[in-house]
């Protein structure tokens, strides 16, 4: 599991994408079920999630962020990946639509997995701050 130390030096900490422990088959089945029932219903993402869970990999950034918002009861309308260091999410809340965006700081030590973890955590942070602002 990614930790605070896993990001490149000088990059502020962000919560990484949730991992599913795969010690026993039953846990994997439970994780899969949870993911399927809570993630926004996009077949391809669910299928990708299945593969990822079985391989003990984190879900894709899109699947992870959709799952997070769906658990909060927020419908995800669109997920936009704008290059490796930027992602945008459009969601509905209180009869309006909101866009949150995250740009990862530039750093030569980024890996794709760490970038996705950081963007996930930053989008979650943005979302929580947005919701606080709205409410």
């Amino acid at each position: 599991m990614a930790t605070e130390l896993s990001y490149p030096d000088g990059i502020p900490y962000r919560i990484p994408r949730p991992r599913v422990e795969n010690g026993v088959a039953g846990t994997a089945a439970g994780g899969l079920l949870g993911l399927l029932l809570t993630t926004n219903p996009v077949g391809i993402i669910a299928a990708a999630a299945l593969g990822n869970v079985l391989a003990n990999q984190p879900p894709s950034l899109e699947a992870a962020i959709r799952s997070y918002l769906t658990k909060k009861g927020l419908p995800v309308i669109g997920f936009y990946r704008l290059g490796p260091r930027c992602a945008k999410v459009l969601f509905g809340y209180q009869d309006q639509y909101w866009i949150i965006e995250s740009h990862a700081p530039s750093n030569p030590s980024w890996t794709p997995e760490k970038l996705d973890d950081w963007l996930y955590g930053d989008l979650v942070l943005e979302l929580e701050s947005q919701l606080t602002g709205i409410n």
Partner: protein
Amino acid sequence: MNLQEAISQLKLAVDALGEAALRDDKTPLGNAQALDLAASSVGIGNENPDVVIFGDLNHFHNFNKQHGVELGDAAIALVGSLIAEIFVSDCKAQAFRRSGDEFVILLSRSMLDRFISLVPRFSSCLLIVTEKAKKTSVTRETSMSFGYAIAEDEVGFGDLLARAEAACRVAKREGNGTCAEWIEELGSVESMRGRCVNCEADVTCYVPQRTESKRRALLCCPCCGMALAQ
């Protein structure tokens, strides 16, 4: 967890996946695959739907081009929610997003008057999108028009949908939030593709099959009214 519990959980997961495969990803409606499944029940009698309605956002190409894909997606989500709220709940309709900004609604003829009375609510749909990073909150207006065709013996679903789509083009000429019925005078229609000489939009027009070529040359872009290069 024992094997039996794992199997039953996986069955639940498979059911959830099957259901998810029929749901649209941007709206609370069914997707194109769900429409394909529902199409077989149109016009077969009993409580099954016998009216096929087609609707799309007016000037959507321009809207997307002017305001960006995120606002375009938000507009699709908004009208999808309104269709679910107004037609699905109020008219007991089945509604689907076929693709892009195209929506198909299946309805029982007994609900048609109710449907027609509700269509004007789509003359102006207010869209509010807030983007924190840009510190902007924009309000845009979008609208829809609808066309419908009533099921007849020996007319397949594909033809009914083409008729509804042709009627929708007629409704669009009449204005936002309007509805038109397909009538025999519209005849068999065929689609023609052209590119607007002004906004360069790829436009599909539906014209009666026997339209003379000089009249076809007068086809205009629905977004900006300029001629189409065919």
